[in-house]
């Protein structure tokens, strides 16, 4: 049995679930961010898998390349997000002496 689209989709789903668990369960801000980065990667993997195994046999190369270009933009935005999120983590740490997300509850009542 050759490696088909399903294999890559399941790998992406595994990676996404692990990242999702991490983003939801971790108390450390940086841990949450690592989970989010993992989810980005899972989605990128799925994009490229769909581009590698096109749905229609008559898809042109330009159409297939959309998946690749999209992944580049996802990576760009993810990196920008990481830079701002980590700066926020440092700011919170400086004001509250913690990066425990369970203790960042000033907006709760």
């Amino acid at each position, binding site marked *: 049995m050759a490696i088909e689209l399903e294999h890559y989709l399941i790998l992406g789903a595994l990676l996404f679930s692990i990242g999702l668990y991490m983003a939801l369960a971790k108390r450390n801000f940086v841990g949450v961010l690592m989970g989010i980065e993992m989810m980005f990667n899972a989605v990128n993997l799925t994009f490229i898998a769909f581009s590698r195994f096109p749905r229609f046999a008559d898809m042109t190369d330009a159409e297939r390349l959309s998946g690749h270009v999209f992944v*580049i933009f996802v*990576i*760009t935005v993810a*990196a*920008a997000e*990481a*830079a701002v999120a*980590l*700066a926020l983590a*440092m700011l919170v740490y400086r004001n509250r002496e913690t990066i425990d997300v369970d203790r960042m509850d000033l907006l709760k009542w």
Partner: protein
Amino acid sequence: MIQDLFADYIAVLIAAILGILLVGGALMGNYILAPRQASRAKSLTYECGMLPIGRSRTQVHFRYYLFAILFLIFDIEAVFLFPWAVVFLDIGKAAFYEMLFFMLILGFGLLYAWKKGVLSWR
């Protein structure tokens, strides 16, 4: 062709396996051969022979983080430059001005960082 792809990357694979074997072998050899006697004095931080005071972790200044951000942003610019350098002769003027505009916008960011004194090390 998928087979050609593997032929291209077989060197990468071999280098990766050799690297893992080399480092893993060195660590394993150390683990097997070296005698180990743990004592409290050995695990203390070495501080010129004096007894260490406080914890070994020191706060790094946030200035390092600003440099890391600059590195990240211009790393991404480099990622866009690679495909541009391959095709800009084919596309012509449009691609040139696109990239010029892109770099100008990022240049403002660098200018801002410069103006705010991020680049100077005090």
